[in-house]
C-alpha cells in the first residue's frame, strides 16, 4: 500500500502583502498544487491521498474556494481522505458540513470527521484524530491510538497539531505526546503517524515513522523545506519507506544585503537578478548601511525596477536600517547654495541620527535632491 501524505493545504489563504496582480495567482497556485498532488499520486502509484488537517484556511472560506477546491480534487484518481484540523475543525460551522462542500463533494473524497479507524484496504486502516473545536482539551492522537491492538492490521494514524517534542508551550493540553505515539508504534499497534500543522517538512523522533509532510505550497518566510509531499510505502511486517516529492511552485525569500560602498548597489541588483521564477517569488529585503543622496535615489530606482518583476518585493522594515548622508558636492553640483546650504546641513545631521526623525530627514534630503534636479 502506498499512501501520499500531505497536509496544510490552507485553501483560500490570502497574503495581504501580495498586490492585486499576485494574489489571484497565489490563490490559484494553492488550488493547482492539488492537481499536481493527484498527478504525483498516479505517477507514484499511490493507493490513496491522506491530507492531515488544515485543508481549508478557515471554516469561513468562500463557497467559490470550496467548489474550486473540490473541482481540483475531482481530478485526483485515487481516494482522498481529509482530516479536519485546527483551521477547519468539525464544529458547528464546519466547512465539511456546509452546503457548498456536501453538495459538490466527489464520492472518492472522504472526511475523517469521526475519531477512530477507517479501513482503506485489506489489512489497512486509517486511525483518525479529527479536531472538533479550535481548542481541544486533550491529546486527540493519544486518545485515538489508546487501546488499539497489535493484531497485524497495518494502521496509519492521521493527526494534526504540535508534537510536545517540538512545541514550546508545554502547558497546552492538546499537544501530541510523542511518547504515547512511539509506544503505540513500538507495540505494533500502529505503523505510521501522518501529521499536519507544521508547514515545514519534519521527521519527528527517531522512529522514522512519525512525519510532518509540511505544506505543499509555501505560505511564509520562516518555513523550512516547504512545497513537498511524502509518499509512504507501507507493508505488514516492515518499517514504512518515506520519500519526498516536490510539488510547490512558489518561494518566499529573505535577503540580507549591506549597502556601504557604491558598488554594493549593483551587487544587490545582480543578486535579485539571479532569483529564478521571480513572478512566483515573494522577497523581503533587509538592507543596512549608509547611502549618499544619489545612491539613495539609485536604490529607490532599483527597487522600483526589480519590484515590477517579483510577485512581491518589500523592505523588511524591522531589519532594514539605512542612513543617508550628503556627500561632498552632491547638492552644490546641482547649484543649490545660499541659505539652502544651511538647511541641507541641518537635515543631514538629522538624517544621521536615529528613529523616525532620521527617516523623515532622509526622505527630505532625497526630495531636495530630486527638486534640485539631481539624477540617480
Amino acid at each position, binding site marked *: 500500500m502506498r499512501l501520499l501524505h500531505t497536509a496544510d493545504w490552507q485553501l483560500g489563504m490570502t497574503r495581504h502583502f501580495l498586490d492585486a496582480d499576485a494574489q489571484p495567482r497565489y490563490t490559484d497556485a494553492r488550488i493547482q498544487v492539488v492537481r499536481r498532488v493527484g498527478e504525483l499520486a498516479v505517477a507514484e502509484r499511490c493507493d490513496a491521498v491522506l491530507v492531515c488537517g488544515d485543508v481549508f484556511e478557515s471554516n*469561513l472560506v468562500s463557497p467559490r474556494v470550496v467548489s474550486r477546491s473540490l473541482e481540483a480534487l475531482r481530478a485526483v484518481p485515487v481516494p482522498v481522505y481529509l482530516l479536519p484540523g485546527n483551521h477547519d475543525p468539525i464544529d*458547528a460551522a464546519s466547512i465539511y458540513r456546509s452546503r457548498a462542500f456536501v453538495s459538490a463533494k466527489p464520492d472518492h473524497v472522504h472526511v475523517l470527521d469521526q475519531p477512530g479507524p477507517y479501513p482503506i484496504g485489506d489489512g489497512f486502516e486509517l486511525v483518525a484524530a479529527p479536531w472538533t*473545536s479550535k481548542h481541544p482539551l486533550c491529546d486527540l492522537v493519544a486518545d485515538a491510538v489508546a487501546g488499539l491492538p497489535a493484531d497485524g492490521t497495518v494502521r496509519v494514524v492521521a493527526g494534526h497539531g504540535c508534537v510536545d517534542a517540538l512545541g514550546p508551550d508545554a502547558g497546552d493540553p492538546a499537544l501530541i505526546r510523542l511518547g504515547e505515539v512511539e509506544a503505540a508504534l513500538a507495540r505494533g499497534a500502529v505503523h505510521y503517524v501522518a501529521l499536519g500543522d507544521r508547514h515545514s517538512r519534519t521527521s519527528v523522533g527517531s522512529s522514522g515513522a512519525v512525519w510532518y509532510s509540511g505544506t505543499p505550497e509555501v505560505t511564509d518566510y520562516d518555513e523550512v523545506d516547504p512545497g513537498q509531499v511524502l509518499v509512504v510505502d507501507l507493508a505488514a511486517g516492515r518499517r514504512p519507506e518515506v520519500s519526498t516529492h516536490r510539488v510547490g511552485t512558489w518561494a518566499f525569500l529573505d535577503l540580507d544585503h549591506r549597502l556601504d560602498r557604491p558598488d554594493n548597489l549593483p551587487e544587490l541588483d545582480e543578486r535579485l537578478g539571479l532569483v529564478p521564477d521571480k513572478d512566483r517569488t515573494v522577497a523581503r529585503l533587509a538592507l543596512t548601511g549608509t547611502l549618499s543622496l544619489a545612491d539613495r535615489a539609485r536604490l529607490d530606482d532599483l527597487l522600483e525596477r526589480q519590484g515590477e518583476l517579483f510577485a512581491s518585493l518589500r523592505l523588511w522594515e524591522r531589519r532594514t536600517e539605512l542612513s543617508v548622508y550628503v556627500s561632498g558636492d552632491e547638492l552644490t553640483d546641482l*547649484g543649490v547654495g545660499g541659505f539652502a546650504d544651511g*538647511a541641507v546641513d541641518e537635515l543631514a545631521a538629522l538624517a544621521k541620527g536615529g528613529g523616525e526623525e532620521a527617516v523623515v530627514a532622509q526622505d527630505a534630503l532625497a526630495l531636495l535632491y530630486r527638486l*534640485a534636479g539631481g539624477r540617480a
Partner: protein
Amino acid sequence: MRLHRLRLKDFRGTVERELVFPTEGVVVVEGANEVGKTSLLEALDLLLTEKDTSTKSAVRSVKPVGRDVGSEVEAEMSTGPYRFTYRKRWNRSTETVLTVHEPRAEQLTGVPAHERVRQILADTLDDGLWKALRMMQAAPLSQVPLSGSGALTAALDAAAGEVNDGGRSDSLVEAVEREYLRLHTATGRPTGALRSALEELAAARQRAEEAERAVEDAGRDVERHAVLSAEVVELEGSRAAAAHDVRDLSARWEAAEELRARAEGAARAAVDARREYERVRHQRDVRAELVADAARREAAVSMLTATVEVQQESVKGTAALLAGHDSRREALQAEVTAAGVAADSARAAADRLEDLAELDRLQLRLDRVERLAARAEEAERAVTAAPVDAATLRAVEDAAAAVDVAIARQSGAAARLVLEALTAVRVTLDGAEVQLAAGEGREVPVAEPVEVLVPDLLRVGVLPGSAGDDLGDSVREARRVLTGRLADAGADGVPEARRLHEQRRLAENELSLVRRQLAEELAASAGKHNADPAELLRRQVRALRERLGAAGPEDATPAPDGAQVREEARTAQQAHASARSGLDAAEAARAGCREQLTAQQVELARGQSAVQAAEAELGDVRARLATAREQVADADLDSRVERCASLVAAAADEEALLLRRLGEADADSLRPRLTNARDVVTRLEHDLATRQQELASVTARLEVVGSLGRQQQLDDARTALAVAERQSATLTARAEAARLLRETLLSHREESRRQYVAPYREQVTRLGRIVFGSDFAVDVDNELRILSRTRSGTTVPFDALSSGAKEQLGIIARLACAAIVHERDGVPVLVDDALGYSDPERLRRVGAVLSVAAASAQVIVLTCTPDRYRSVGSAHVISLRDDRRPREAEQQALLG
C-alpha cells in the same frame, strides 16, 4: 541695467525727442507740465514689454492725436554683459529692430528680436528691483517692495557674507512649497492624495474591523453552539430525573392526603363524643342542683313562719303599753292648767309692788331737780349784776399800762436833775421833802417844771425844754383813754375795776357749778330724749301714778313685803314649769311607744309576705323537679354520663393513632417538595426550550455563515487595509519629508534674511543721516520693510510718519538699494517728480543724498519744478521744451 539713450518719435504729444543719459550720476529731466516727461517712462516700458503688433489700449493710446502715424521708441541700454539698441514702432508701419553690440554683435528683427530682448532681460534684469526702484508721482507713499528682488537678495547675501547662488535657493523654496502644497493645505492639513489615502486608510481599517467582527461573531457562534449542545443534553437528563421525583412525591402525597382525611374524620368524631358527654353531664348537674334547691326552699319557709309568730306577740305587747301612756297624759294636762292659773296671780302681785317703788324713786329725783333750777336762776342774776367781765378789765389795764409807758417815755426824754448831797441835807423836791445823807444822790427827771428847794438856801427851778411838750401830749392822751375805759367799767380807778371783776368771776363760778349738778341729775334719768329732762321725769311720775291709781294704790293693802311677794310669784312659776315638763316627758314616751308599734306592724306585714313568696317558689321548684323526673329518672342520668365518658376516650385514641401515622408519613414536607419538584421540571423545561431555541438560531446563523465566505471577506479587507496602509505610509512619508524640508528651508531663509537686513539698514542709515541728522536710525524687518524711524531719541512707526518723511524715506530706501546692488545687476532709480511734500531744507539734504547715491548708480529724476532738485550738485540737467508742431500747439491752446 543702464539706460544710455532714449528716443521717442510721434509718441503721444512728442513729435521727436532724444535724450542721452550719462552712465552714472543724477540726471534731472525738467520741463513744464504736459511736456511729456512721464511719457518717457511709459515709452521705455512699452518698448520692453509690448510687441510691435500689440493692439492693447495702452499701445493704441500713445498714437498722436489727429495724426495717422506709427509711434516709435528707440533705446540704447546695457544690462549684464549685453549692450544693445532696440527700436519698435507700433500702430502704423510696425517694426522691431534689435542691434546687439556687446558681447557679440547680433542683428534681429520682428518677433525674434522681441523674444531675444525678453530673454536677455529675463537673464539679466531683476524685474522686481526694476519696478521697486521707481518712485512715481501718483503712487501712494507706501513701503518699497523689495523682498522679491533676486538682485537685491544677492547683493545683501554678498554683503552678509553668504554664497551667492543667484536666487536658486529661492526658486528651490518655491519648488519645495509646490511639493508641500500638493499634500498639504496652506494651513498644514492633509489634502489631495494624502487626504484621500488617509481617508481610504480609515475606511479600510473600519471595513477590516467589521469583517473581523463578523468572523469573531461566527467563532462565538461556534463556541456557543458547542456549549448549548452540551447544555441541552445535560438539561434533558436533569429533566428526566426531576420528572421521576415528581411522580414519586405525587404518589406519597396522595397517600398522605387520604390519611389526613381520616385523621380529620376521627378528630370530628372525638369532638362530637365530648360534646355529648358534656351535654349529659350538664343535664345531671342541673338535676342535682334542682333537688338541692327544693330542700333549701323548704327550710327557708319554715324559718320565716317562725319569725312571723314572734312578731305577732311583740305587736300585742306594744299596743297595751300605748294605752297606759294615753291615760297618764290626760292627768298631767290638768295639772299644768292649775299651775298656770296660780303662777299668773302671783306675778300680778309682784308687779304692783315694783311700780310703787319706782314712783317713790322718781318723785325724789324730781324734787332735787327743781331745787337746782331755782339756784341756777339766782346765780344768773348775780352774774348779770356784776358787769365787769374779763375783757372789760383787760381794756382798763391796757389803758393804764399805756399811760405808764407814756410817762416813762416822757421821763426818759426829759432832762434829769441830779442831786448829790455833800452832806446830809434836807431838801424839798416839788414840794416834797427829801432827806439826803452825805454822799447820797438823787436823780429827778425834768418832764414838768421841777422845783428844788434847799431850805434856806436855795430854790432851784428847772423847766423842761420844748421837746417835752410832745411827750406831755401823749401822756395826756393816754390818761384820757384810761378815763374813758374806767367809765365803761363803772369804776373810779383801776383797783375798783379789779374788785368789780372779782365779784363777777365768783357769780359765774356759782352758776356753772349749779348747772353741772342739774345736768348730772337729769342725765341719770333722762336717757337720750330731746325733750326737757325735767319734763320727761314729770311725765313718768304722772304715768306711774295713773297706773297705780287704776288699781287703787292708795287702797291696796300696804305692801307686806316685796321680797315675799316675789318669792311666791317665782315658786308659782316653777310649779307651772315643772308641770309642763312632766307633761312633755309623758308625751315623748307615748310617741316612742307609738312609733315602736308602727315599726313592729310593718315588720310583721313584711314577714308575712316573705312567707307567702317563699311558699310560692317552693311550689314552682317542686313542680319543675317532678316534671324532670317524669322525663328521666335520676339514676338513668348517672348511667348515661358514664357511657359518654367511655366513648370520648375511644375517639381520642383513634385520632391520636391516625395523627401519629400522618406524622410518620412526613406529610407536611411532601407538599412543598412536590411543588418544588414540579417547579424544577417547569424551569428545566423552560431552560431546555430556551437553549433549544437559541441552538436552532445559532445553527441557522452558522448555516448562513457557511455560504458567506466571511474569512474571504476578512482576508480581502485585510489586504485592502495593508494596501491602504502602504499607500498612506508612502504618502505620509512624502508629506513629512516635504514638510520637514519646507520648514527647514524657510527657517534658514529667515535666518539668512535676518543676516542681510543689517547691510541694508546700514545703507539706509548712512543715507538717512544726511537728511535727518546724525541721530537717525531705522528698524527694518526681514522683508526689508522699514518698520519705524528713530530720531532725537523718538521712535515713530512708519505708517505714523508725515507724508514728507515717508517720501524722503522712500527715496532713501531706493537709493540704498541702488547703492547695495552690484553694478552688474543694478537698475536705474527713477524718480518721477517726487518730494512734493518736502520743505526746502529737506530738499537740499535729499539733493545731497541723491548726489552721494548717484556715485554708484544711475538716477533719473523727472520734474516740472526744477527748483526741487537744484541742490543736487552733480546733476546733469536736461530741459525739455514743447516740441509739438505749432499748429498742434495752437489747437491745444484753443482746447485748453
